[in-house]
């Protein structure tokens, strides 16, 4: 299995080689080489932060377009709960959005929120009866799952071993559709409407599923304009909503905790906050909680990089819709027996310096030695996010010391000094360095 197929790609024509993404990547997975950014696939967790921050829009998510509908005899739209926060003027009735999805080409709609809600109920049951290690950590956000797999392996046993709402919804929807249409599974397309690239990667590269039941992933941003127009034209919305209000809440940070109705819980969002919670949990510094909800994006899924609306406005809209939705709508035919993972999760050692412990220690000693010769400004001009990252790249043979502008300047000054420049350029350069050092 190719374990490193990602949904974040670079458009090198647009890339200016600035280091904005390099500096902001939480995994230090990006370098600028030959004036273009490159993503180190082994380290990428598909959080989409680089797409969000690129001032030149050179980072793209690799997702499907609406033309994918042609590939199937019967298509089911699986809208992420975050879709409901994207549109104004629906007056709390998300049936308008669901009907509009049919108008833009889908044969039917199945709310991922319904699957989310079912998972919440099962999570509550699991925690109440659990003799397993608490707290249980949500596995709804694929970026969180990836970072735990790579950077916090000791927390893997805490992960909720349930499929994500997207995956569970696809399995559920396909069963229902097969029964209703009589079509074989492969003729039915389950198309997830996604707020982020991480979920697209979770489909391409399932970690704990044998194979994803989702057949394609379309970005919310991709269909936004078309859907908005269609929404305006809906006169009598069809009654397509099947999820209750707790399922809607999964779109926003904290919503999963409320839906699971676990009293001792904790929720955090944004990569920096998530990492500090995971560190604290690993160090046993956290107060006793039973359930932890973590979202890579600020605000939760409404903050996904493939959404359109401001996450805080979207959150307000989702909360408004929740107020107009009864707690449980139609919890029928839910295949609860199919909620568990197909297989357990394994540690992903991609961040290790070397596969051999002794070699890794030797290499780190070398890295630290190189790092001691760099000036520690973490300026990024070399294309690496920090002096330590450059030192590691040099030690591994991916970069040279001459990529550091300060080292090059020192070499240049040494050269000028040797030649006793008659116009005094060497002295003035040396004086300038001194002034800078004093500053």
């Amino acid at each position, binding site marked *: 299995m190719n374990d490193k197929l990602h949904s974040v790609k670079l458009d090198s024509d647009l890339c200016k080689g600035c280091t904005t993404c390099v500096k902001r990547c939480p995994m230090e997975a990006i370098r600028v080489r030959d004036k273009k950014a490159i993503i180190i696939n082994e380290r990428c967790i598909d959080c989409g932060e680089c797409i969000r921050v690129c001032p030149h829009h050179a980072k793209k998510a690799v997702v499907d377009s609406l033309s994918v509908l042609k590939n199937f005899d019967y298509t089911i739209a699986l809208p992420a709960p975050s879709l409901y926060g994207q549109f104004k003027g629906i007056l709390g009735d998300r049936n308008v959005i669901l009907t509009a999805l049919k108008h833009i080409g889908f044969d039917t709609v199945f709310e991922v929120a319904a699957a989310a809600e079912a998972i919440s109920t099962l999570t509550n049951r699991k925690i109440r009866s659990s003799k397993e290690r608490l707290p249980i950590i949500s596995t709804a956000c694929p970026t969180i799952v990836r970072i735990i797999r790579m950077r916090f392996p000791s927390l893997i046993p805490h992960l909720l071993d349930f499929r994500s709402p997207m995956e569970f919804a696809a399995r559920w929807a396909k069963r229902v559709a097969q029964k209703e249409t009589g079509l074989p599974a492969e003729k039915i397309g389950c198309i997830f409407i996604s707020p982020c690239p991480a979920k697209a990667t979770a489909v391409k590269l399932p970690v704990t599923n044998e194979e994803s039941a989702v057949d394609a992933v379309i970005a919310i941003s991709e269909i936004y304009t078309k859907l908005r127009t269609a929404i305006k034209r809906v006169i009598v919305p069809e009654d397509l909503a099947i999820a209750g209000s707790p399922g809607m809440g999964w779109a926003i940070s904290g919503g999963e905790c409320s839906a699971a109705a676990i009293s001792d819980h904790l929720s955090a969002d944004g990569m920096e906050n998530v990492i500090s919670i995971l*560190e604290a949990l690993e160090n*046993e510094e956290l107060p006793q909680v039973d359930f932890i909800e973590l979202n890579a994006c600020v605000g939760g899924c409404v903050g996904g990089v493939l959404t359109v609306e401001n996450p805080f406005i979207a959150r307000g809209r989702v909360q408004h819709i929740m107020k107009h939705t009864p707690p449980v709508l139609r919890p029928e035919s839910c295949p609860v027996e199919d909620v568990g993972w197909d297989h357990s999760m394994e540690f992903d050692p991609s961040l*290790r*310096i070397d596969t051999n412990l*002794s*070699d890794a*220690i030797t*290499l*780190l*000693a070398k890295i630290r030695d190189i790092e001691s010769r760099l000036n520690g400004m973490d300026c990024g001009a070399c294309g690496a996010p920090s002096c330590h990252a450059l030192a590691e790249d040099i030690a591994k043979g991916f970069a040279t010391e001459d990529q550091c502008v300060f080292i090059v300047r020192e070499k240049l000054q040494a050269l000028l000094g040797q030649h006793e420049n008659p116009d005094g350029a060497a002295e003035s350069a040396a004086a300038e360095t001194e002034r800078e050092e004093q500053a």
Partner: protein
Amino acid sequence: MGALHLEYTVAPDDFSRAGEVSGIVKRTLKDLGFPPAVVRRTAIAMYEAEINMVIHANGGKITADITPEEIMIVFADQGPGIPDIDLAMQEGWSTASEDIRDMGFGAGMGLPNIQKSTDYMDVQTTVGVGTTITIKIFVTQ
């Protein structure tokens, strides 16, 4: 065989930075590829010891010596020293002030917790001179 020597300074009375060194060393051990259980035990012991330094001893120095077989960490401070080491080893015993306890520290679990998480612990302490705690975690696959 690879060997690595690391040195850090712990700032006094700065709770916003308490745990910083343990965090750095934990990350380093992970990047090196030590087994998760070894990393976790080291991190827990180090965090306790580092917090102790901040609470009781105006900071100090931490050195780490890392080989594939064992991790040895030395915490050296020039604080007040521990008058009765047997008492300090009892769970729940603490000299931490009310302020410190209000912050959720000083539950008297420090030294016992460090001992629990490590394979070896040695405490050298002289009242009025300082305390040096040496811990070792043996690496077993």
